[in-house]
């Protein structure tokens, strides 16, 4: 019994340490992303990290961003802390709306960084007949492909 509890205790300690180490790495990458934004001569306007677990099934997570607050947002993504594949899809409307348009896609951000400006996204929106004045929010879907179980995180930082 004592051996079992010792083993359990060790597993807990290892798991707790590993999780905190993962979070610390993600936090550092958020700082790096902020530096990337200012290095491009842009102002930083916030960050959102989406955390998940890779599993045997494809999963979806999404975020909504109000884009009318700044003239030209730039979206910076960091997938350095995702071992499995994650695709980023950007839409004009929420997932429950069947008429939504896919305005931009980043195929497999895992282990990489990528960025796109609102200006570029709006070009696609106009091509589909949309009026840029009416686009007050963007909806970003993370398509988390099935993969061996591990932790993952995608960070989005906003510049303008």
């Amino acid at each position: 019994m004592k051996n079992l509890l010792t083993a359990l205790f060790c597993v807990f300690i290892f798991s707790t340490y590993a999780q905190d180490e993962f979070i610390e790495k993600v936090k550092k990458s958020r700082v790096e992303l902020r530096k990337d934004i200012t290095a491009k001569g842009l102002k930083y306007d916030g960050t959102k990290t989406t955390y998940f677990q890779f599993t045997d099934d494809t999963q979806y997570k999404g975020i909504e961003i109000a884009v009318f607050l700044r003239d030209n947002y730039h979206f910076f993504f960091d997938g350095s802390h995702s071992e499995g594949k994650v695709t980023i899809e950007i839409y004009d409307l929420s997932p429950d709306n069947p008429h939504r348009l896919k305005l931009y896609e980043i195929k497999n951000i895992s282990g990489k960084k990528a960025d796109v400006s609102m200006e570029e996204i709006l070009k696609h929106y106009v091509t589909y007949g949309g009026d840029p004045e009416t686009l007050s929010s963007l909806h970003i879907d993370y398509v988390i492909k099935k993969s061996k179980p591990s932790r993952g995180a995608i960070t989005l930082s906003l510049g303008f």
Partner: protein
Amino acid sequence: MNTYQKLILVGTGLLLITSCSNNEENTKAPELKKTAIIEVDTTDVYTSDDYDFVLPRPFALVSSFENAGLDFVASRMNDPKNLEKYTTDGKQLLNFGVYSSDLVYSIISDQTQASITNFNAIKNLADKIGMGSIFNEEDLAKQIEDNISDREEMESLMIDVYERSQEFLENNDMRILAAVQFSGAWFEGMYLATFDVDKKDKKKLSHTIVDHMNLLKQAIKGLESYKERGEDTAEVLAQMKELQSTYKAFDSIKNTKGFPELSPEEIKIVTAKIHEIRELIIS
């Protein structure tokens, strides 16, 4: 929860298990050996919701009203004397947001004294909420005091304040509370922007209000998720839902084919309701 807190919790739990199971060991050990399975739960508080919202920062919220007209009148801001009234968590969080917007309003209007007053109000509320430590890191408070009249620098420092408060709330399993702060900041921004509506360009003002009303649903979601809200915060939530229903029932919203344009009458109705709710928040 940090590593040490977790370790203490896990250690205490295991001590309790050990002390209980030692008594049972003599009689039930053979059965335990057959069934013992080590299962480790790998989920944690850092698994995000399936759908989330990037909460706009107070600086972006308030400065977005500048195009529609935002004159500085000191008496429109929440009086720091009101701080003593905020004794519940809900009111403290909502008014942390209110004073954050008032601080931005002061900064973009080049009002140094008002900026200092509002910053002190934020610090006071941060202490009450238990996150006063966010100002100690890298001497953030001093940096703010030194740069209070520099809009550009303050914009960056305000983002630091916001991010640290969010990180503090995340680290302490209180992510939901960030949305409560946002609700307060949003209402204060809307409140400050909806004075003298008769003198403003109706088209611009309508566009700004319609854009911002899209954020109301997020403010409502934030307060709904906050289960420990007291009676005073519950009343604010009820009024917010009423505002949303009123807005959705406007002819210009129901019948629009493109981007809606509110009639002057509808702008006045929204304005009156926002001012009413803001009074409720700061009372």
